[in-house]
């Protein structure tokens, strides 16, 4: 066995063990834990990068390392690093539990990294649960500042809906196994394709998708989103809102490849979910006052957009979905960076709290503006390019109604993104304090803005990288 194939996972695993021992020692080691986590995350990224072109399979071929998995692993690692860089202060979590917090954060990332490599249904399940259960634990670790324990409510909702979604997924897996007698993807694929649009196969595949619809926040698996976004600490939400979505899209692409070509039923179903997610997310986001909650609903709408690429059942469509989710993660991180910094003691940020941000922290205001306009899909940012390519791909397959509805959603969505920009740029700060920006945050926010603009202006590079990665699994 080539150790490079499993090196990033091993790094994360040993890192988690180190943190585990750190959490046993008495006294608060929050700062130490954070630095250690950052170092481990960086090591994992470097190892992934070094083994970027590795290929091979492990553990009786249930675990496959290829371009596709390596690309996602790299992005998951980078996402974690960015979250750790700007969320280093971890304002909303008490110092005592920080080593545990970082332990579960690393374990969750480990789960995601394993998830994108698994090519067998049970491996898949184990990796997903490793990532999910660690996340469930991060939510209630927030300090109880409201007195109503809203973080507990969020955690309970998160875990209950998560368990239901997992149940649905397992049930679907049982169908797939029953139909084909195998749990390996490479054997499932030809057998399921041969069955064509047989209802049992369709139901099985869609139910397996359900588990990842939950992660991505697609209607009707979205119910946890607003409460968890609002109830968890800002840094946790930043992580939940970005990194796991990479894993979810990677797995959704893998599962969608199982769908037999020209399967009208699945396409129609995905179309219905996409439209419902977009309208639900955008319309409800219009009236939100809490920025995180608003971004939660906007995330539901964006999940609908991602489905637009999947339902084409084409390689180009999957590639645009990948491009879109990469862009989405960057835009989202840019917005959460601002939220984490503006929040003084880790409390939630209302939209009015951003008043006059241009005076209180010009760089953060610019980052927020770029992030919001990018999420709204205004060129020259990545959000526009992604939407444009998704719409082109969907129209190519003849889904005119869907494309028109999606375009209308862009027009609806602009209102709430714009109202955040308006508050930040056009209002006066009144009595609100200045927001200090340290050097690292400055560099990270400039970096995120550059990526948002560069991916929007020159999408060809990322797109061809995504297409190449897809070749490995198709």
């Amino acid at each position, binding site marked *: 066995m080539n150790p490079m194939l499993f090196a990033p996972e091993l790094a994360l695993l040993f890192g988690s063990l180190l943190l585990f021992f750190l959490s046993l020692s008495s006294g608060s080691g929050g700062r130490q834990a954070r630095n250690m986590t950052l170092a481990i995350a960086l090591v994992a990224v470097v190892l992934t990068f070094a083994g970027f072109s590795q290929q091979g399979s492990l553990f009786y071929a249930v675990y496959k390392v290829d371009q596709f998995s390596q690309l996602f692993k790299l992005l998951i690692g980078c996402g974690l690093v960015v979250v750790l860089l700007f969320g280093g202060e971890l304002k909303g979590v008490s110092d005592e539990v920080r080593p545990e917090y970082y332990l579960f954060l690393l374990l969750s990332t480990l789960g995601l990294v394993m998830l994108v490599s698994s090519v067998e249904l049970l491996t898949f399940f184990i990796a997903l649960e490793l990532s999910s259960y660690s996340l469930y634990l991060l939510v209630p670790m927030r300090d109880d500042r409201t007195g109503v324990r809203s973080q507990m409510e969020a955690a309970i909702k998160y875990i209950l809906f998560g368990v239901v979604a997992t149940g649905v997924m397992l049930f679907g897996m049982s169908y797939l196994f029953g139909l084909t007698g195998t749990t390996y993807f490479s054997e499932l694929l030809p057998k399921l394709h041969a069955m064509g649009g047989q209802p049992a196969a369709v139901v099985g595949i869609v139910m397996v998708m359900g588990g990842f619809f939950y992660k991505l926040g697609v209607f009707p698996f979205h119910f946890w989103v607003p409460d968890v976004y609002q109830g968890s600490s800002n840094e946790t939400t930043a992580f939940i809102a970005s990194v796991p979505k990479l894993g979810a899209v990677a797995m959704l692409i893998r599962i969608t490849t199982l769908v037999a070509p020209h399967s009208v039923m699945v396409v129609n179903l995905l179309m219905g979910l996409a439209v419902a997610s977009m309208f639900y997310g955008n319309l409800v986001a219009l009236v939100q006052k809490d920025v995180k909650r608003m971004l939660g609903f906007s995330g539901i709408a964006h999940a609908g957009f991602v489905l637009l690429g999947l339902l084409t059942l084409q390689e180009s469509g999957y590639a645009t979905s990948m491009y879109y989710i990469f862009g989405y993660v960057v835009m989202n991180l840019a917005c959460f960076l601002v939220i984490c910094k503006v929040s003084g003691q880790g409390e939630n940020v209302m939209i009015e709290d951003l008043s006059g941000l241009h005076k209180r922290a010009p760089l953060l205001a610019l980052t927020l503006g770029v992030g919001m306009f990018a999420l709204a899909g*205004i060129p020259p940012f990545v959000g526009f390019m992604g939407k444009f390519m998704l719409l082109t791909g969907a129209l190519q397959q003849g889904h005119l109604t869907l*494309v028109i509805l999606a375009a209308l959603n862009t027009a609806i969505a602009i*209102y709430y993104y714009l109202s955040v920009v308006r508050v930040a740029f056009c209002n006066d700060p009144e009595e609100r304090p200045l927001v200090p920006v340290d050097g690292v945050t400055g560099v990270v926010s400039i970096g995120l803005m550059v990526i948002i603009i560069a991916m929007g202006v020159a999408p060809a590079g990322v797109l061809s990288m995504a297409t190449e990665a897809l070749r490995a699994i198709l």
Partner: protein
Amino acid sequence: MDFLILNDGTPWLSILLFLPLGGAVVQMLLPGDKAARLWAMLVTIATAVISLPLYFKFDPNTALYQFGENHVWIPSLNIHYTLGVDGISLLLVLMTTLLMPLCVLGSWRYIQKRVKEFMVCLLLMESFMLGVFMALDFVLFYVLWEAMLIPMYLLIGVWGGPRKIYASIKFFLYTLAGSVMLLVAIIALYLKTGSFSIPAMMGQDYSAVFQTWVFLAFFLAFAIKVPMFPFHTWLPAAHVEAPTAGSVILASVLLKMGTYGFLRFCLPITPLASFTFMPYVLWLSVAGILYGGFTALAQSDMKKLIAYSSVGHMGFVTLGIFMLNGQGVEGAILQMINHGITTGALFLCVGMIYERTHSRELSSAMGVGQYMPIYVTFLAFFSLSSLAFPATNSFVGEFLILAGAFAKNKVVAACAIPGAILAAAYMFRMLQKVVWGGTSNPDQSYLSDLNLREIVTLAPLLFFVFWIGLAPKPFMNVMHTSVTHLLNQVNVAQAGGAVTVAKVLLP
């Protein structure tokens, strides 16, 4: 790329596109308000100077796109970075580069807070606006067309008047809502032709139904931008609340993008549908002319008055375009330039009085003629130009449009005529009050007349008012071949038997 004459080695258009953009990036790094103003001035003047060779090197005998550039941008979707100008866009490009230094100069004292950011927005606007007129790839066009909303939104929303929030959000929502269907239409056209190249989409044999839908999508986007009655409601709000430079950019350049869109996209890409919808557009134009005129007559706010007069003037432009004959279209293009110059100048004039009295109310500007003789001289000439007085620029444009209209249909033309009279009525009303006022003028003795900077701002525009008014030939020459080519493209469809309800609506 047989529609494109490539440039002679110097990428003029790319320089025009990227110079202000690069200037904006450098601007962000410059400290201090004074440096910001000077740098913006320098960049806009450099852009203006660089745009001059376009006119001299332009070959008016061909309808092809000149100074062309073509590079692959996104290969997987066949998207190119294609630039080029023809007789329709050349004058618009030159007008934009001429106006931007004047906008900077006009904001010299008006903008006191966050000067640097203001100038960055102006430079970004210049880059995007020029790009819109030069882009020959639909994706490039759309990117620039939408990207423009951000700096314009900030110009109104940050530096605007008391109701800036309402005005800026209304502007943004209205324009964006109009453009989303444009995007769908662009993708649909791409799927028919396999390319995003604008000239390659022209002259294709699309079915009548397809053309109808594409036309409607185009029409919504461009009619909102023009703005045509009844889509005009964002305009008075945005114009009134924007700072002077913002109003000038809005009135002089942004509105032209709508009419430019009709000329560049609607007519050549969907000629059949253009014929079908011509009568409706013509009557909407007439409605706009009359509505704008009457509403302007009732305004007490000078900026609002000029904003509504814009609705009327742009009505004339769309009227000329949809006459679909040589005089109408040429008159419309010239009138686009004229309106840019005259209305831009009028907004600058209102801005100058606002800097002194801090009010845009007509009543507080009564009788300033006694203390500001130079100012009212300028104002008088620009007002005369606005009402299309002979020997000024607008006279030539409006005359051509009306001549084209009478050649096409006398009823429509006759209905548009009162618009010209209304223009005289509201302009003279304003002029009378500002120059002389009445017996109850407020005390204006503290006012100082225009200083050198302000005279320098207005003088070039006055020069063009008379140049185009007295000798429009240099301007007409460059557009003639392109307009003839455009009308040929449209008339092919008419020969093919466009179904039209013209008999009923155009007696």
